[in-house]
């Protein structure tokens, strides 16, 4: 749905540390269907980057193909974007990040883009622990080709067309944990209170931060019988933990004050406050995280929150020992060994 957005902003609208208003983080008007979960995620992304005072032009947006992959047009209009080919965002993101390690890389993908055609690339970008935020806008269906089931649609779930899904679904979060992701979270587009701090923590995390956001497709997969519908998710959602993200400097007063908080410090010194459910284990255990997910499946619950976190993450450039200076800024002096070396090499071949 297209609509016009008034350009007027309240003159006293809040500005962030950089002096930018929220507008500097907005993009073009969305052309998605009215009520699409993706639009809510877009709004959460805008809020997260705005509130974290990240310079928009230092962010790189990358996506594949599909409804979700169209969304980078709708946020961070001052950032470069790359709407690549279906299922291949991870490799393009890898190359872009290798070229310049200093920018913030935000990958946006969908369940078709990631769990089917791009499953291989997803697995390997996780293995490489590329320093990026990888968001899947997960609606369990192929929206742009009119509602076919995707690989994350739960077995037995029924979309608008009414036929139950025949095959097992892929749980991207569980897979990501197994593949070695050091930050794995699941959110719901209808719960911005949880999603915004979750995205902030993902942005602050060094290494690959995987965020699976269940995002109902109002047009093709929102029947009450679908496990990706608004009503089903609301009824079956169970938060592993509520969380708040505290950036390195200005302290944000937490809105959650129940339960006991556990603080997990990220590499840059920022802190995630996790308000655990009393009976839940610490999320820094991989084994427990997977067990929780499996258990929730049996109970037909959808676990949300930060599911697994390893704050000691080593990203691709740490492992590769890449120079601090971005590779794309290097010139002849840094890169070309020169003719003298070549003559020595010629001689060694004789």
């Amino acid at each position, binding site marked *: 749905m297209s609509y016009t957005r008034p350009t007027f902003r309240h003159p006293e609208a809040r500005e962030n540390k950089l002096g930018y208003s929220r507008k500097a983080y907005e993009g073009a008007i969305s052309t998605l269907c009215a009520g699409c979960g993706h639009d809510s995620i877009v709004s959460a992304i805008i809020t997260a980057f705005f509130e974290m005072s990240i*310079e*928009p032009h230092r962010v790189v947006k990358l996506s594949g193909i599909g409804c979700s992959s169209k969304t980078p047009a709708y946020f961070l209009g001052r950032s*470069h974007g790359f709407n690549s*080919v279906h299922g291949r965002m991870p490799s393009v993101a890898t*190359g872009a990040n290798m070229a*310049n390690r200093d920018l913030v890389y935000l990958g946006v993908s969908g369940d078709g883009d990631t769990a089917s055609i791009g499953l291989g690339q997803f697995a*390997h970008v996780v293995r490489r622990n590329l320093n990026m935020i990888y968001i899947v806008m997960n609606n369990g269906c192929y929206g742009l080709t009119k509602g076919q089931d995707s690989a994350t649609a739960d077995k037995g779930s029924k979309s608008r067309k009414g036929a139950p899904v025949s095959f097992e679904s892929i749980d991207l979060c569980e897979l990501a944990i197994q593949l070695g992701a050091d930050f794995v979270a699941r959110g719901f587009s209808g719960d911005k209170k949880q999603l915004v701090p979750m995205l902030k923590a993902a942005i602050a995390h060094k290494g690959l931060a995987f965020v699976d956001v269940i995002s109902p497709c109002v047009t093709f997969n929102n029947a009450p019988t679908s496990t990706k519908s608004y009503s089903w998710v609301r009824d079956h959602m169970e938060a592993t933990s509520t969380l708040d993200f505290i950036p390195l400097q200005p302290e944000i007063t937490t809105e959650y004050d129940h339960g006991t908080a556990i603080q997990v410090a990220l590499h840059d010194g920022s802190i995630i406050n996790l308000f655990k459910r009393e009976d839940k284990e610490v999320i820094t255990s991989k084994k427990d995280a997977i067990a929780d997910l499996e258990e929730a499946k049996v109970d037909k619950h959808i676990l949300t929150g930060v599911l697994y976190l390893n704050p000691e993450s080593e990203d691709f450039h740490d492992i590769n020992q*890449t120079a601090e200076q971005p590779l794309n800024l290097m010139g002849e002096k840094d890169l*070309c*060994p020169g003719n003298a070396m070549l003559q020595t090499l010629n001689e060694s071949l004789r």
Partner: protein
Amino acid sequence: MKRLERVNDFVIRFANVNGSGSASANNLFAKVVYRLGVPVSPKNVFPSNIQGLPTWYEVRISEQGYLGRRGGADFIIAVNGQTLRDDYDMVQPGGYFLYDSTRELPESFNRDDVTLIGIPLTQLCNDEFQDNRMRQLMKNIIYIGALAYLLDIGMEPISASIRKQFAKKPKLAEPNIKALELGFDYAREHHGDSCGLRIEPSTAVGQRILIDGNSGTALGALFGGATVVGWYPITPSTSVVEAFERYANRYRVDPETGNKNFAIVQAEDELAAVGIAIGAGWNGARAFTATSGPGISLMSEFLGLAYFTEIPVVLIDVQRSGPSTGMPTRTQQSDLLSCAYASHGDTRNVLLFPSDPHECFEMTADAFDLADRLQTPIIVMSDLDLGMNDHLCEPFSWDDDRRYDRGKVLSAEDLDKIESKWGRYLDIDKDGICYRTLPGTHPEKGAYTTRGTSHTEYAAYTEGSAAYERGMKRLLVKWETARSLVPRPEIRIRDESKKIGALYFGSTTAAALEALDRLEGNHIPINSMRIKAFPFQQEVFEFISEHDLIFAIEQNRDSQMQILLAGECLVAPGKMVPVTNFNGLPITARMITNQVHTTLLARGKAFISAASPVQESTP
């Protein structure tokens, strides 16, 4: 029987079992000939296997400097029981057959035009060495020792090379020298004057070096400023990236911090490999990937994206025999069409055709400038023969004043100076190439979304026919700019009347030049054109139109260059005659002369003067 008696002009072929350590012994032999100053051209014919299957190493020795395959073998070292009979049958009349005489040859090996040279390799080895591995490895060195005597090389040049090879581990040199002596002494005692082939020191090599094309390519990428590599292992391109990594570890690592001025990812497949290179090219780093035919098929989707979104990227295609998995360890030039028009829709890619390792170096370095200048994929078309075999070529050199041409990239200052609205796909200079920006350049200006969907001059999504057509037509303007920038063909006129021409490219060059020399010697002067790049320039069109008949010499079944030329240059049907070899082994000069003769005979007297002999002997 008339024995072959030749100095510095023959072909020697080693028949081995792969995984037996023969490769280093055979390389040693070629290197010694090279160090004696005699032009040499070794070709490795190997299986897609690690151990136990037949492998051959063919060494052409040519004082005149003919470095292509000639065809046939004058001296065969038969160390592989599996292929003994075939190897024996292959010896040229008057030639020599060296075999392991620990076991007698079957009686059926009774040709009267072959000189048998029995050396009890296994026996000698077992008597001298106790260790099993040593017994296997040293067998190879023993026959090199025998050759040192038989070909009149002497012990010294070979033992000197061995000592050089083991300079850091002199202890390892000892058993090698011992084995060398065993072979040398045995041959001297038992085959005093068996062999009429000789190698004499020469100055014909001059300053030239001996190196494989893939190393040249890797050095080109290193000097050309490549920093990001995405790749997936595939023969015969693997050694491009392995060599790049080796050189980069040597020359691009900060000695104090250990930090690297490069990043290489071995990707999950070829799609990701080229995706990585494209992502990095988009973000302003010089990036490449190396692959072979099957990889090209997989990369086609991404090549279309890079073409349409205009992203610089360099692709090295080391071609092998297709289709499908084909013969993965055999050579061919059969990816021309799949590379030229890779991907769906109307696409065209710039191709470069190096013919030796020196050109692999130069063209690869140039490819990065071209990619940045043209903002499009540049594909360097090497092949297995060129890439994996050692070739004699001019030494490498680099102009230290040379600056990388990074093309039209706007800085923050540039963006501030622009008064009108900047558009990523606005053709300001009317050369089809637009100005691009890199992420992170300017807080407020120059951001855009790159997309594989149709876009306006301002990079906005559009389904408007007019904008789409404008974009597609502009890409053709850029194609014309590419035509003016890529290397021009090398033309040689032997006959001013310009009756017959021949064209070829890449690794076919050496055999083609030899064939054309021989044909000229037989009073059939044929003008020649070596094509170095696609798009083709005016010279290519003119050369074809000036001649009555054109031989297109290439190494694939379907005459792909001819198809490309026919379409691009609108050549009249029948004007071009294919001369092809697609058996997986490098084309030989004899194959070319034979096919040319056959055609000329069939086409009648118009093309053959009275003095021309009918045909050379078959290979």
